[in-house]
């Protein structure tokens, strides 16, 4: 016994002394990468408080006397506020529809037994192979024929359809792990399937719903391609399309560009910092298992 213990002890000691150098190097490398993710954001926020001339001449210096001229321009001249609202309505609407329809479908696929289940799963997986490029023209045609193009629904409906597979798979993965006893207890209490969904499966699967809503919101909020095609009129234009517009129209007003980037990014970052816990949880429990 004795030698074995001392040997193990020796290994541990050796390891800890070796690791101190290795660990230091790792911390240095990790800090370096985190600088690449933090500094650019700081740079752009910092420059958003300068007039264009100062951005050109001294983009690195700290803006000690911040000016708000870019912000007033952003809201007055290019109506950024309106685009914020458009983005919120369309991406928020997409999230709500995806959660409702995806949740219901996931509930059926995870907790019911019926013959068509396997083919339905195959059909779901097949949609993952269809990129937006392969559907955009006919969808555009449908939207024109139903005069939904350049309305909020013109983006909400395609986005909902496009994100349903992801949502259904993640939520179904989570729901299939819920104990059967809960369901039986609810059945004895006289719940029907709808009540069971609302009162049990929805609340219990909250982490899955939360992570799905974050990702669907991000993907919808950030999707330039669909936005440029389906909703590129000023009254319904979401923030990404406006950003693209600003870069081509005001490409030389660097202060204004920095402000536009700041205004798009900061709300999302703040929300992210509050809910980052859910993202990791959702990814752990859903996406990978898919």
């Amino acid at each position, binding site marked *: 016994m004795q030698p074995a213990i001392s040997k193990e002890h020796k290994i541990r000691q050796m390891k800890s002394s070796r690791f101190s150098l290795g660990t230091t190097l790792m911390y240095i490398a990790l800090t370096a990468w985190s600088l690449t993710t933090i500094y650019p954001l700081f740079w752009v926020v910092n420059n958003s408080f300068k007039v264009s001339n100062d951005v050109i*001449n001294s*983009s690195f210096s700290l803006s000690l006397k911040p000016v708000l001229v870019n912000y007033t321009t952003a809201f007055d001249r290019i109506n950024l506020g309106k685009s914020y609202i458009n983005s919120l309505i369309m991406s928020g609407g997409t999230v709500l529809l995806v959660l409702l329809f995806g949740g219901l479908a996931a509930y059926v696929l995870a907790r019911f037994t019926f013959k068509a289940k396997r083919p339905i799963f195959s059909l779901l997986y097949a949609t993952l192979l269809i990129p937006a490029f392969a559907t955009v023209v006919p969808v555009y045609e449908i939207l024109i024929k139903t005069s939904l193009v350049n309305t909020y629904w013109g983006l909400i409906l395609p986005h909902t359809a496009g994100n349903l597979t992801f949502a259904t798979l993640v939520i179904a993965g989570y729901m299939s792990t819920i104990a059967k006893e809960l369901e039986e207890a609810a059945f004895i209490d006289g719940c029907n399937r709808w009540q069971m969904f609302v009162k049990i499966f929805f609340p219990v699967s909250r982490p899955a719903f939360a992570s799905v809503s974050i990702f669907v919101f991000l993907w919808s909020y950030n999707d330039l391609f669909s936005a440029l095609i389906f909703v590129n009129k000023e009254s319904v234009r979401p923030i990404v399309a406006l950003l693209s517009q600003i870069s081509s129209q005001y490409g030389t007003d660097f202060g204004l560009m920095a402000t536009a980037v700041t205004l798009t990014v900061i709300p999302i970052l703040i929300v992210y910092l509050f809910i980052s816990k859910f993202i990791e949880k959702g990814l752990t429990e859903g996406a990978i298992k898919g």
Partner: protein
Amino acid sequence: MKGDRKYILIFLFPMAALMSIFLYYPFFKSLYLSFYRTKGFFDKKFIGWDNYERLVSDKLLGAATLHTLELMLYVLIFQVGISLILATMVDNISKFQRFFRSVFFFPVVISGTAISLLFVLFYNYNFGLLNGILTGLGLEKVLWLSESTALKAIAVPTVWHYVGFYFVLFLTAMSKIPADYYDAGKIEGINGFKKMTKLTIPLILSDIKVVITLAITGTLKVFEFVWVISRAQNNTDVLGTYIYKKALVDQNFGYGSTIAIYMVVLGVILALLANRLLKSDEITY
């Protein structure tokens, strides 16, 4: 349960309807349109395989495909590589794990458009961040978006954007590896770099496969970075921007659909190929 049939139908109906209208029908419609010459939405003429013949001889499409593949190469090497290395490091440290997790994920939540604008500001010849650093060091300014470097310049934000996403996926996979494996490795004297190549990577190979598949299909969809940073000029056209120009700027729906079908086929082939290649790796371990 009694009456389940009714609920199955009701609960699945909204999803089935939306997917049929906005995914399946348009996909088959694209397939159908790829055999037509179109003018606008309503004037079309059946032309058989003509669009596909044009596809084969389209030099611009060939260039766009090559650019996409070049971008894909950078993504596979650097994006997957960096995220794997970062995840291994974070998995091996004890402090600040949460901090690094949060900070590395920052770029993922930012839209590609905003990141592109950010890099437009970096690459700008006269005042950009990079040339600012160069003049600070007393060096010559560089034209970052010239014909020979523009695609590489675009690859940088493309890679940087999603490193955090794959990092989290890898870290999650690594946290599932039972500690016994590492303990056994420790006794064998496997540490540091060897531990990563001999233990961690083989154990999470299935997750690496998922990430590689996601990276391949993701790169085929690249659009914003090219569209905003170089306006798809200077030899940077990728498949995403090319199809946008053909189908929506030129309103050539027939040929645009043909390109779309080509992209789906290309994506499926590349994904299958990647999975096949990795499978043979798995046996050797």
